[in-house]
């Protein structure tokens, strides 16, 4: 049985390399939507993918470290409210971890739907509720501006996780050999 909050060596390494990957994609690989500061980030697709594979702790840390690092490299300092929201999204998406068996080669349509339900709820909570509230508390930004940004971010991130995350999980499950796939002749 997979435990929800286990933290073994593999989780640590996955966190480290996943965060590096997240930083890289966050900085260089994005699709503009037209509203400043809210591009469709391919990085969230990777974040969701890693969260589903390695659990909520790895997912949350990957997005948190990755976002903080890429912000610091690009802008010199992190935008904390959004960094926290990023971490939370992938943490919540990772809660599906014990239900999936991707590394055993199983990723059915049903698990894909489950994964997407989780990630959409996670994105809605983090970007429409948590991020704007933190923006107002920490930076005293005007409410209607941050809620508009939050809704756009939630939609674009959910799209990113929905397309890229699901695609990667499907591809990855195909590269793994299924449990009990050997037959005796």
């Amino acid at each position, binding site marked *: 049985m997979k435990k929800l909050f286990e*933290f*073994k*060596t*593999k989780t*640590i*390494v*996955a*966190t*480290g*390399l*996943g*965060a*590096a*990957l997240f*930083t*890289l*994609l966050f900085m*260089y*690989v994005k*699709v503009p939507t037209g509203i*400043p*500061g809210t591009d469709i980030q*391919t990085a969230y697709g*990777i974040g969701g*993918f890693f969260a589903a594979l390695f659990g909520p702790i790895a997912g949350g*840390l990957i997005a948190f*470290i*990755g976002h903080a*690092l890429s912000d*610091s*490299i*690009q*802008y*010199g*300092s*992190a935008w*904390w409210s959004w960094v926290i929201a990023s971490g939370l999204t992938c943490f919540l998406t990772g809660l599906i971890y014990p239900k999936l068996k991707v590394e055993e080669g199983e990723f059915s349509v049903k698990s894909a739907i489950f994964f997407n339900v989780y990630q959409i709820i996670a994105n809605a909570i983090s970007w429409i509720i948590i991020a704007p509230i933190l923006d107002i508390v*920490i*930076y*005293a*930004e*005007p*409410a*209607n*501006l941050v809620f*508009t940004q939050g809704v756009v971010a939630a939609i674009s991130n959910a799209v990113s996780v929905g397309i*890229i995350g699901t*695609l*990667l999980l499907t*591809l*990855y499950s195909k*590269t793994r050999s299924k449990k009990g796939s050997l037959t005796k002749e």
Partner: protein
Amino acid sequence: MKSKLFDYVERDNLVFHLSGVTKLICFICLTFSVMFSYDIRVILSVMILSLIFFKVSGLEWKQIKLMVIYVIVFLLINFVLTFIFSPQYGVEIYGTKHEIYRFNSRYTITLEQLLYQITKLTKYASVVPLGLIFLLTTNPSELAASMNRIGLNYKAAYALSLTLRYFPDLIRNYQDISLAQQSRGLDLSKKEKLGVRIKNIMNICVPLIFSTLDRIELISNAMDLRGFGKHKKRTWYASKRLKRQDYIAILIAVFVLVGSICISVFINRSRFYNPFI
């Protein structure tokens, strides 16, 4: 795409000699004092302090040019958007209204709005030198040791040090895959349609991610074989002992943080500095 963005080049001066823990604590204290306070006087003094440290650290302009341009663009967009979305937010906060110029009934420029927006601008701008100093003068391997020192679980600290260690490797990997795919005729330039371009980007990302997954397996096996995570504590090769200058720096940073909270609580009686009453 350059991995040169955060080069660590060792130099011989005060800021580089401070230990990673000290710089982390100072960074957190000063950033929080700026984040908490909405008093332009406090923010400007922190800004001046951080600029002085920036000067002392001897970082060069060409190291940070790109970042500064990003920050300026970002701040300008935020400035304009704030005005478009909430042109009267300053009036709401400060409770008075001094009009300077009137476009129509919704869009008027007021002194309050100007103060609010300029305060916000300096608030974002003032932490930039701090972040730069922290990022560019701290040895990446020492950083993990520092994080562990101030109480972060060493496994999480180790994850961070792995990130810093493998980030340049992944950039190189990404470039290799991207060039290899382009030499096979994959077009990433603006000539291609957006949909096709996204698909082409995925053709680069998928091999990158899958090779990373292989690498995760490899590294975690190697670490397990060497007994990583067996004990509750570990020692660090790159950690530095705290010296007198470290304690002085921490004291100054804590003093600034406490000072900024005190000014908000006792003098302004709110997070905002209100010169209009």
